């Protein structure tokens, strides 16, 4: 049994300790907003926050999160109104949308540590997240917009 907190709720799971957190989140806990894309931490679609920091769940054994706090896209905000999500809507970022939960979790983690990221900061924080539809230009614009929204008082 491994116990951890996910989106504010304590959960206990009976799974092999080496099982990647991704499959625990998606299949054991049924939270499918976190996606599978590569299984090798190469694409970022499986990104969640572990004690606030972005991690790739496809290579994180569930044993590594025992006693820790996991936040998935479903737990980022109550109403989908985190500044990053608001900015994503304003800028019309998503196309197919499959990579966007991972992009948003990476962006939210960036803004938590760097409230006014430069383009270079964005490159550093976001280059682990692939978008095959090619929404990078809008992601960049939306991160700057989210930074402004956050400063404007939106959480």
């Amino acid at each position, binding site marked *: 049994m491994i116990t951890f907190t996910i989106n504010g709720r304590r959960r206990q799971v009976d799974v092999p300790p080496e099982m990647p957190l991704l*499959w625990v989140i998606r299949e054991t806990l049924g939270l499918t*907003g976190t996606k599978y894309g590569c299984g*090798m931490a190469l694409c970022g679609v499986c990104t969640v926050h572990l004690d606030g920091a972005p991690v790739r769940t496809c290579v994180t054994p569930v044993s590594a999160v025992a006693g820790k706090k996991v936040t998935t896209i479903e737990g980022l905000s109550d109403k989908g109104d985190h500044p990053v999500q608001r900015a994503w809507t304003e800028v019309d970022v998503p*196309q197919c949308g499959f990579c966007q939960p991972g992009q948003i979790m990476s962006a939210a983690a960036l803004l938590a540590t760097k409230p006014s990221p430069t383009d270079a900061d964005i490159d550093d924080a976001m280059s682990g997240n*692939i978008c095959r*539809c090619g929404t990078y230009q809008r992601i*960049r614009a939306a991160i700057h917009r989210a930074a402004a929204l956050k400063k404007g008082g939106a959480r």
Partner: protein
Amino acid sequence: MKTGISRRALLKGGLAVGAGLSIGFPVVQAARRVARAQTPGVFAPNQWLRIDRDGVVTIVNSVPEMGQGSLTTTSMIIADELDAVLDNVRVEQAPANPALYKNPVTGNQAYGGSRGVRDHFDMWRKAAAGAREMLAQAAANEWGVPVESVETEAGAALHRATGRRLLYGQLVDRAQQLPVPQNPTLKTPDKFRYIGKVVHRRDTPEKITGRGVYGMDVQVPGMLVASIERCPVFGGKVKSFDATAAKRVKGVKHVVQVSNGVAVVADGLWPALQGRKALRVTWDEGPTAQVSSATITREYEAAAKQPGQVAKNEGDAEKVLAGGGRVHEAVYQVPFLEHACMEPMNATAQVTPEACVIWAPTQNPGGTQAMAAKLTGLPPEKVTVNTTLLGGGFGRRGELDFIVDAVETAKAVGKPVKVMWTREDDITHGFYRPATHNVFRAALDANGAPVAWFTRMVGPGILIQKGRAQAGTIDAAAVEAVRNMPYDIQNLRIEWINKDLGIPLGFWRSVGASQNGFIVESFIDELAHLAGKDPYEYRRALLGKSPRHKGVLELAATKASWGAPLPPGRARGIAVAFSYGSYVATVAEVSVAPDGAVRVHRLVAAIDPGLAVNPEQVRAQMEGGAVYALTATFYGRITIDRGRVQQSNFNDYPMLRINEMPVVDVHILDSGEAPGGLGEPGVPTVAPAVCNAVYAATGKRVRSLPIDRNELRRA
């Protein structure tokens, strides 16, 4: 925002099946829809829309949402002609039912070729305009006034003279008694309320919260999850397998042979993958095991020495070229490419003796239904296809292989099964953009203008391989954007040689134009430089018979300040092409580092898509097409060794990332023509614009993709 691909809608389908419902879903849906025409309380004049007494408009979108924005655009078009309020519109995804939802141009309920808007625009408008006229007539009857005096706006009919107003919801019962008009009057463009305006995407809320349901997110009660071990060699078959160790893995329930390999079925993907690792399979690798990239290259080169089939012949290019003068020759090569949708292939199916239900991220609901009917022996109407959101399509999801996996596995184990592909499965078992080898020859007159042009293309034909064109004919997909290239050259000969060595082929975003835009626009650039002319002016002078090409070329050049000085080390390149109904020109600004690394700083693109239904999504598709094309320009290459794909994941089949993203500046030219395509046209001009800029910067001509930085190295 409510779309039909909510978790609840899909789960409802799943639960109904789990509860033992034995009637195929499409039958239920279609029957319900027909019945609604007579059911009080719902006005359903056709298969595309219905309105209830609360005034809620439900639009049925037949085009799968794969990122192109079909949920939004379809709603915009119908809401506009209906005079409905877009915010009060629900949209749901159409079931597989080709009789009702086939593409009127192709005749199939399958979507590719950037055909969403351009093939359905008139039909959807007519469907909505007819409904609007019926609602207006219902109001006229209610008020006892001539219908000509009734106007509609914002979900209501009104009689301006008397100030009377009725909401659509209040007209539902009267309207549904009226005959459906055969030739309703369409709005004139000045009356458009949504079409041509910037409308935010309506699927964003579910895509930024994790609520949207993609294929891999489908959960059906009692469902098992499978992973399939496939022959590493294309076309190979299972000779025998030993599942003893696989079955010992905790959670593994079944190991079954299916046509694409051996399926390990478990209570989750993780145990299925462990079981798959423990599986021992002996393969009959078949003839493709003799094929490697080196073999393919050799065969192409040998074939290129022979005459090809004539795809186009005007004047006498061979004679002019044999006559001497300034003749230039070059060979261009492109590799196989995989689509690499962000969502790896997957599908879910349940097969009972009475019905088959499929949940799939598919571009091809109609083909899925027909395939499953064949595999299960059920009539098509007993096969329900629920199209989920697609995590990318790009042509890959028009194929049925991954759905065959699910249907066969579910049938074999008698339970609902989700088949999940790994990224490695996805890269190594794709349907690839053909590798090609292309010989060009041109003769220039004293002024440097081309008087003869010869292209011989060698490569496989997608349509022929798939049996959609006859062997021995010219494969239209192989020669597109060459056969119809825009330049006015008196003597023109285009040949094609079909050389198919058994690598599975597929339609890859912009298909033949994806490589042919590169080869034609690079070679014309070579001629411009050979003639000592400006590459923009050189093209422009040859576009006398192609005004829409010329229009976008001029717009792109103007917006990119073609000819104006650039910062030191930067250079521009230009390219123009037609594909999938739209005209695009791109100017690239690049610099090349001493180590040969190419940096694209900016792409200025001009597109003439005819009527731009949603301009913001036109820009989004162009931005996306640019990224797809840049990945192919810098990274994309699938190589084959003894019938096996040598790449397997994003480490050896890399994608462009945000740190390499140039500014993409999109300009829309409103030509007033009918809508063209958007998903694909952004791709073909990017590689040539970049490579032409590389030439301008370095004097080195890139004739083979992806760009090899070693060939551009100066230090």
